[in-house]
């Protein structure tokens, strides 16, 4: 487990009062949802599990303030947003250490044994992940929260401490950048050293 650092960026400190929150109950109810959200972005079981554990351990260690928690009426959506955001950061962080070779990613490797249609879809997914890590961080976060976590603009704005207008502009930029990257460099070859 190496993801403790992520917690500081994702939860407000409970400086004054912590809400009485049963983290274990939350984990029972939404742990699988969180794992799936992280896996979608990372396509890596181990790293998705890291994100999942980091998120709930973070809640255990530093629960949101009572005021903030009282504003969260859909815990599953909230946790999905956090998980997606952590996963995007993890994806970006890993970029620098990882040599992207064809077939290295589990998805493509596994798909190599699959019918062509499934293989093609796995490659499409992996190319989008590679393109995502090449975006500026804010663009990657906004896009992932909007598309993978199905968040509304105001939710993204709240989560990322941005204005709704800024989220909208950032999303547009992200979309255009991704379209361009997928067309001009679909395999993310410029990412390789």
């Amino acid at each position: 487990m190496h993801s403790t650092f992520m917690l500081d960026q994702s939860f407000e400190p409970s400086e004054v009062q912590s809400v009485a929150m049963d983290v274990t109950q939350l984990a029972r109810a939404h742990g699988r949802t969180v794992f799936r959200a992280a896996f979608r972005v990372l396509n890596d079981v181990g790293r998705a599990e890291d994100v999942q554990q980091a998120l709930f351990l973070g809640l255990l260690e530093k629960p949101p303030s009572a005021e903030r928690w009282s504003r969260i009426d859909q815990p599953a959506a909230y946790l999905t947003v956090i998980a997606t955001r952590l996963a995007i950061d993890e994806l970006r962080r890993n970029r620098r250490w990882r040599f992207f070779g064809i077939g290295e990613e589990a998805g493509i490797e596994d798909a190599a044994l699959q019918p062509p249609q499934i293989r093609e879809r796995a490659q499409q997914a992996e190319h989008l992940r590679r393109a995502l890590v090449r975006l500026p961080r804010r663009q990657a976060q906004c896009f992932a929260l909007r598309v993978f976590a199905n968040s509304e603009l105001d939710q993204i704005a709240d989560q990322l401490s941005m204005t709704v207008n800024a989220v909208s502009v950032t999303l547009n930029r992200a979309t255009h950048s991704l379209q361009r990257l997928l067309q001009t460099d679909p395999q993310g070859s410029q990412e390789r050293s």
Partner: protein
Amino acid sequence: MNSNSNNQTLNSAIESIMDHEPPTGAVDKAQARLLDRLAAESTTAAPSRPIWGLATAAALAILILPMVLLLPGPGNGVAFAQVQSYFSGFSTLRAELTTLMNDEVIVDMVARVDESDRARVEVTGQFTIIVDPLLGQMLQLEQQGSRARLMEWDAQSADSGEGALDWLEDIREFQGEAQRIVAVEQIRGQEAIGFELLISGQAMTLWATEEGRPLQLIIQSGTERSAGDQPFQVVTQVDFHFDEPMDADLFSLTPPTGYILED
């Protein structure tokens, strides 16, 4: 390629990701391990953290502090423990951070922390951010436009680093051993001993005085290739200055004269 085709390619990729399910059994195994972990953790008292460990965008550079605190595991020796103690026991800290790409400065930043854990970060020619964690407020000053914004401080805004300082997170992840460097260097006129850290192939060196006072952190980002396929070297240098007198005005949340306060 027209925009419809671009859209189609992107949408198709999105669908592929959304449809991609984890391997059979992976979700349940992860869930079981999560519940085990929570059960184990809940019986252990949560460790206390320094207030600046709470992080803010303005204090990203200052995150060096709690991160370095987490650096060494057992067996790193007394010398490094002394280095750590400076990060936890200072009264004020000034950290000068410079990032060079092929010897050209691309980021030039000064971060200050005072005794009350107030933080001020200045990026030369761009902006200044002042955070008062006790008041829960942050002042942003845009230097070129002389515009100021005062806002509620939120730990979430710590994530606006746009990746430029991702290496800080990597340091924090480090659980390995800090290797003492045999050679002695002169850093700012002082004899310095060094500790090497290697994180996923990225070399980091922390220099400190014989007494353990940290002087400098060097991060080598290695040779990468830019979009134009030209190799480049990125080096980040952080110089530490402890316990200097600091003017309280540096941490004032009142915009300086000439700045326009925006809503």
